[in-house]
């Protein structure tokens, strides 16, 4: 394929300008505003507004007060990402290597369920996992759950909901990576007497790493920030950081605390992502 010629000159700027301006105005500037708000004096009243006094103490306060929800968000997000990786890998692998001419149809089917509203989908999990529902009764009959055991309003339901809702974000990048793999490499490993398992771990898995990395990031980031699953499928014991930020903003009107939590969440995620991408050795992705 011939290399596309890139034209120089002002037209490039003109084409980019509207989108870049929109993102600067409504993404970059707001983030600055969020950081500023997080340093306001939380004692400010509604009448005279908040005052900037570089209240870094806000961050100490939110870590002390909300370490629980923050930790839960990260834990639930990490667990859901792990389950998504297992389920998503199987599905992506089956589509890329075993589906033959049904590939495109299956890809459409992967995203099809996710066209229904996110909230409606999550609500239907509430029904599936309900006490006395089919799933709970079966698990009780199999003695996996105790007689009064339940799934709804437990961390299990929250993680299950997150896993379900973010699965396509895992499957699509994994598929893109797996589909690019040259089948001859896998055959070659077989010719060199690697059994299918060794072949998988020495050839297929390493070659699919870019997909694994972008899939886990695309799943982990929204899963950590989500609070719909915790709200619908969990109880008050499963409150996550998103719940707290939302209610601090809209119910408690405590903007500095809510902003500090938000900034903290973003910084934590960025830090984890950077470390992860370093360790996975796929920096060119970013």
């Amino acid at each position: 394929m011939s290399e596309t010629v890139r034209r120089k000159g002002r037209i490039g700027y003109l084409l980019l300008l509207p989108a870049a301006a929109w993102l600067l105005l409504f993404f970059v500037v707001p983030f600055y505003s969020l950081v500023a708000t997080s340093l306001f004096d939380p004692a400010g009243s509604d009448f005279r507004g908040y005052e900037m006094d570089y209240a870094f103490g806000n961050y100490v306060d939110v870590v002390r007060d909300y370490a629980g929800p923050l930790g839960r968000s990260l834990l639930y997000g990490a667990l859901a990402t792990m389950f998504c990786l297992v389920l998503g890998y199987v599905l992506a692998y089956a589509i890329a290597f075993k589906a033959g001419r049904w590939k495109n149809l299956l890809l459409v089917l992967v995203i099809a369920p996710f066209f229904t509203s996110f909230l409606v989908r999550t609500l239907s999990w509430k029904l599936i996992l309900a006490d006395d529902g089919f799933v709970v009764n079966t698990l009780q009959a199999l003695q996996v759950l105790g007689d009064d055991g339940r799934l709804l309003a437990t961390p299990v339901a929250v993680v299950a909901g997150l896993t379900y809702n973010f699965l396509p974000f895992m499957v699509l990048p994994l598929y893109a990576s797996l589909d690019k793999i040259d089948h001859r490499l896998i055959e070659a490993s077989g010719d060199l007497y690697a059994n299918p398992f060794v072949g998988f771990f020495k050839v297929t898995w390493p070659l699919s790493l870019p997909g694994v990395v972008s899939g886990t990031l695309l799943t982990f980031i929204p899963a950590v920030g989500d609070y719909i699953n915790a709200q619908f499928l969990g109880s008050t014991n499963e409150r996550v950081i998103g719940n707290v930020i939302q209610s601090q903003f809209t119910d408690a009107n405590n903007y500095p605390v809510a902003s500090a939590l938000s900034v903290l969440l973003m910084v934590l995620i960025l830090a984890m992502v950077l470390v992860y991408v370093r360790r996975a050795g796929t920096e060119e992705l970013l």
Partner: protein
Amino acid sequence: MRWLRERLVLILGLLVLVYTFVPIFVVVGMSFNNPGGRNVYQFGSFTLDNWKDPCGPDDLCSTLLTSIQISLLATLVATVLGTLAAFALVRHDFAGRSASNLLIFLPMAAPEIVLGSSLLALFVASGFAGQLGFWTILIAHVMFCLSFVVVTVRARLAGMDDDLEQAAMDLYATPVQTFRRVTFPLVLPGILGAALLSFSLSFDDFIVTNLNSGNTTTFPMYVYGQERVGVPMQVNVVGTLMFVVSIAIVLGMELRNRRRVAA
């Protein structure tokens, strides 16, 4: 046994796929549910009432209409701006290209709750706290759809050979003709895909919207609000319709592509 071993991965994969459809079956089933008693999370008896009167519950259809309006507008603006930017990034060379790529990547790497609270902080700080509503939701939706449009269209453009365009130019087509007759039709599937993605992102959004909505209520916000008191069964009718309509659109696009390739 051998048959099973060869197909094990495929069978497991299909099982995962079936799992993703379970909630859809529930939604479709519940759209025919007459709960009878108070528990709306159980199947009572079969009825067509929900389908005959989808707008029955207060606010359901008005919030749906608000959502559709916002999503259409957000899709339009984001698709146009995003497509222009994608052309700039693939076809043009200028200082600051990599910074621009980063600017486009970052909103996708930020959790929604951070995007939403940042915007709210800005609106409040700049004195727009009283004006939160339709337009602030629209601004927010365009913001988070833009990056996805740029990425989708950029992928299409980057994977495109420019041989056809070169050929058109060699045959004395003007740049405008080349763009209209060759470049644009080739990129169009990417643009349509991006628009579809934008629409569903915008239509489905709750977290960012909820923070910046003021007194305006969108459909996801309506569902969220009803969750505590028990969601009306008609919500499942809407869920079913959304599923059917989007499948129809996707399959329609796929068929059109196939026919084109065949022709």
